């Protein structure tokens, strides 16, 4: 799952397992080596025996099922789990208020820079009391 998602980390916390998040590459040799995205760049870690992994969008290539696999999947039994059987609080604690689509406006000022456009920027910054 991509960077925006918090779900894998939450699952690992429920299961009391390590979570190796934001994986962008996996190498399989004697051990499984994971390359993980970090704030400073990336780091390589050895995958523990049991853990939850989350991968970034560019970290894996999706394998799309063919028609035969899709038909075979339909024959597989699906286990249904009732939410109430899980030891977790699933109550809604967000109230949706409003949604607004942002419009692109073509209104605006166009300045042709003939060497003096920086003055316009300076005036704008003064107007906004930035300088």
């Amino acid at each position, binding site marked *: 799952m991509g960077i925006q998602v918090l779900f894998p980390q939450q699952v690992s*916390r429920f299961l009391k397992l390590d*979570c190796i*998040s934001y994986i962008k590459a996996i190498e399989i040799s004697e051990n499984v080596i994971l390359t993980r995205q970090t704030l400073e760049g990336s780091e390589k870690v050895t995958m523990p025996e049991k853990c939850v992994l989350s991968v970034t969008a560019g970290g894996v290539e999706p394998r799309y099922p063919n028609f035969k696999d899709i038909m075979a999947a339909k024959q597989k039994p699906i286990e249904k789990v009732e939410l109430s059987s899980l030891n977790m609080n699933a109550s809604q*604690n967000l109230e*949706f208020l409003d*949604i*607004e689509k*942002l419009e692109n406006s073509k209104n605006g000022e166009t300045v042709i820079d003939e060497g003096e456009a920086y003055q316009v920027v300076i005036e704008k910054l003064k107007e906004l009391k930035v300088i």
Partner: protein
Amino acid sequence: MKTLIIGEVTDSKLNSGTLEIINKANDLGLDFSVVTVGSEDSPILGSSTFQQTYIKRSAESLQFSNVADKISQIIQEQNISLVLAPSTYQSRDLVSFLSVDLSSSPVSNVINFEIQDGSVITTNSINGGESIYKTKITSSQFFIIN
């Protein structure tokens, strides 16, 4: 509203995302303290205007479970009701763990928030910035990722 800011240290200093959140908390007049997480021995931290705790995590540690345990303890001991964190890899891991510990849904991709009658109203960006939506958090503890 007692608030905890989860900060980050980059190059031995509070990073820009953390400073932005501190600035926002100051603007709203929130009663806040800061917990910073890093792997450096002696980062340049500290302020005379708010309480700050530095948690040095093990550079060998694969993830932030132990750090989350410590922050969870701070939240409960100090009766924190609002947790703010920057939108980074580390903070997303930490807030996810804390939200499970405290049974509260985190709100991510928040571009602004305000306090109205004791409730937190967030403004969130979706669809690649083409739309924004507003939500009100109704749990007793709020987790926001800016």
